């Protein structure tokens, strides 16, 4: 089963899956050929992607693409479902601390227009609900809530407010107005402690005044109470501490995976699978235990390939640090097609990758982790971390990809580019990638190819 790393089309995966089954591949209940996600769920974009050929990648894709079905099944089994919006990594840790409770990420519907090549009309439907194309594609979740057909309606909907992007606030407010009650919790904009203020260390090398940590801790306490009421149990520190340890198990595995793939001289796994893998950090793709198994499989595959000196991307590829997730998954394939590879990422949720402190009271630890969210602090904090990781992983160029309509910080991309140019002097570009980027593919390809050419041209002779 340990074939040399190769990219496969969907057609090729059909054959490969058959072969793997004949060879005795054992799959989880959500396993099967990738083709069915096109036939049954109309995820047409899969027909235009190139996938890694490992069984571990197959499991990852099946895990991702069966999330809605698994959620419906969990509901049928009596599990409580929590829609955790915007915080990208904190409330899910709390929800999974309780038995028979799952958190999911309704905002994740922003990838649905890409996967379905807009065949679901979610974006158009959002427009009729007052959220036009000047808003982030996250607006796709609105008709998904209203008309169903995607994820089940959650038993509790939780969303952070305050220092979050304007787009998301507007979309979530509209959602509540349409009859979906939301438990809001306040997230202050992170700032440096003033002189005389007590400072608290946050994950990721950041700090914030104690008053902000106290505020978030109190807010999360309120969320915890609501989660407990939904579960009919008291969410105490023992459960929370267990939940934090389990979340950290995911984060440690992801850290090992990122180090194995990004920091190595050549990439053992492709950029596309790594993007999906990193996304598991946010809410464990609705199944924490299984996400650990999926990530363990990917890590084992990456380490095995590294040991065998077999890589998914040429060792000569230009080392690109990529900022923000792409609205069209195809862009990750494109980068590798033109001779680039990912050597580091900041997909907007680095706080969900950092370990949650285990030596603090659980709510205090979660408050500190939540405040480390790159989107609730100044863009310069985010830029500094990006530069640090670019240096550590030997990035030769930087890409900041923008999502059309997204506006959590209109000038953030420019700030990151300027910071990177000034501090490390690597070429850097900002790209806008729409949910289906086929029409802009020529221009996109030119920009990325030029960046790769420049990066290679700058290598010492």
């Amino acid at each position, binding site marked *: 089963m340990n074939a040399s790393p190769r990219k496969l089309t969907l057609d090729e995966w059909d054959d490969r899956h058959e072969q793997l089954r004949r060879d005795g591949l054992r799959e989880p209940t959500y396993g099967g050929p990738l083709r069915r996600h096109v036939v049954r769920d109309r995820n047409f974009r899969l027909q235009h992607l190139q996938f890694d050929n490992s069984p571990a990648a197959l499991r990852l894709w099946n895990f991702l693409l069966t999330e809605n079905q698994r959620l419906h099944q969990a509901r049928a089994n009596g599990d409580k479902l929590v829609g955790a919006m915007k915080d990208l990594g904190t409330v899910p840790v709390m929800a999974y601390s309780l038995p028979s409770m799952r958190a999911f990420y309704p905002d994740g519907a922003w990838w649905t227009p890409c996967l379905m090549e807009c065949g679901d009309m979610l974006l158009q439907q959002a427009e009729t609900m007052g959220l036009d194309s000047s808003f982030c594609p996250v607006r796709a979740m609105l008709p998904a809530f209203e008309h169903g057909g995607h994820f089940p309606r959650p038993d509790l909907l939780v969303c952070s407010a305050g220092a979050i992007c304007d787009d998301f606030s507007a979309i979530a407010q509209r959602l509540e107005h349409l009859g979906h009650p939301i438990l809001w919790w306040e997230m202050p904009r992170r700032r440096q402690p003033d002189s005389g203020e007590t400072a608290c260390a946050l994950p990721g090398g950041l700090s914030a005044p104690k008053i902000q940590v106290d505020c978030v801790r109190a807010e999360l306490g309120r969320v915890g109470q609501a989660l407990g009421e939904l579960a009919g149990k008291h969410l105490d520190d023992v459960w929370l501490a267990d939940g934090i340890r389990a979340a950290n198990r995911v984060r440690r595995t992801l850290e090992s995976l990122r180090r194995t793939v990004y920091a190595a001289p050549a990439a053992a796994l492709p950029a596309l699978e790594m993007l999906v893998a990193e996304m598991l950090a946010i809410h464990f793709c609705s199944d924490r235990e299984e996400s650990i198994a999926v990530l363990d499989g990917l890590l084992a595959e990456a380490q095995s390939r590294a040991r065998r000196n077999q890589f998914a991307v040429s060792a000569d590829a230009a080392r690109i640090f990529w900022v923000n997730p792409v609205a069209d998954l195809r862009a990750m394939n494109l980068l590798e097609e033109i001779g680039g590879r990912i050597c580091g990422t900041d997909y907007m949720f680095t706080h969900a990758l950092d370990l949650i402190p285990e030596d603090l009271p659980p709510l205090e630890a979660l408050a500190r982790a939540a405040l480390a969210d790159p989107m609730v602090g100044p863009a310069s904090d985010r830029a500094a971390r990006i530069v640090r990781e670019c240096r550590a992983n030997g990035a030769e160029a930087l890409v900041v990809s923008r999502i059309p309509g997204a506006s959590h910080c209109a000038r953030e991309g420019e700030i990151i580019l*300027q910071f990177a*140019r000034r501090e490390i002097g690597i*070429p*850097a*570009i900002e790209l*806008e990638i729409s949910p289906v980027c086929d029409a*802009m593919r*020529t*221009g996109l390809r*030119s*920009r990325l*190819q*030029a960046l790769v*050419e*420049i990066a290679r*041209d*700058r290598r010492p002779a």
Partner: protein
Amino acid sequence: MIRAGIDAGSRSIKTVLFDTERKEILASGLADQGVEQERLAAELFARVLKEAGLGRSRISGVVATGYGRHAIGFADTTITEITCHARGVHWLAPSARTIIEIGGQDSKVISLEDGGRVRDFEMNDRCAAGTGRFLEMVAARLEMNWEKLSELGRQSRKPAIISNVCVVFAETEIIGLLAEGKPLPDVVAGVQNAIATRVSALAGRFIAPPVYFTGGVALLPGMARALEEALSCPIHVAPQPQFTGALGAALSDGA
């Protein structure tokens, strides 16, 4: 050894033959772009070879660049226009530190290091307002060619202010200005200024002198002047600006 560079742009295809030993351009040619990009490029290539009195066997390599580079199947390799314009301009003007290239459907600002290596670049391919497409629209609306357009622009005494950054809506403004009796040269100069303003916004952080202007739009004298005013720095028009991309391709190692 003779190398060929082909720049398959959105409006035209350009070819340059370069002698790497004598370090000189042997021939160049230009043809309109069309649907059958490879056939048009092949015909142009054959014509330029014939005019130069060279057989195909004398060409040691062909590099394609430009928007349609991937359509040129007879090229040995492809390189982006960013790299090629940088190499072409550096060969023509080694002191160049910034290149502004305004093409038919995009515009680019390229920052160069000592030695001509690209430091960074910025590119606009999402909005027609900073590209030759804007001028094409105006030329079509006024029923005149680019040369006449340029000539008119030079006669302007008080350029009109085109306030809209969208070409489609700017067209409405132009119609309005003409209906109000605004002199034609002032409207044309206003359009040139609007393009220059758009490009200067793109160029902002990159501008380091000397700045060289290249691409087909650089042939319009009024454009360089408009850019000088928008950027507050001297603008040098590259020699044979429409051929710098093809020249850079011919100079490239991949050939």
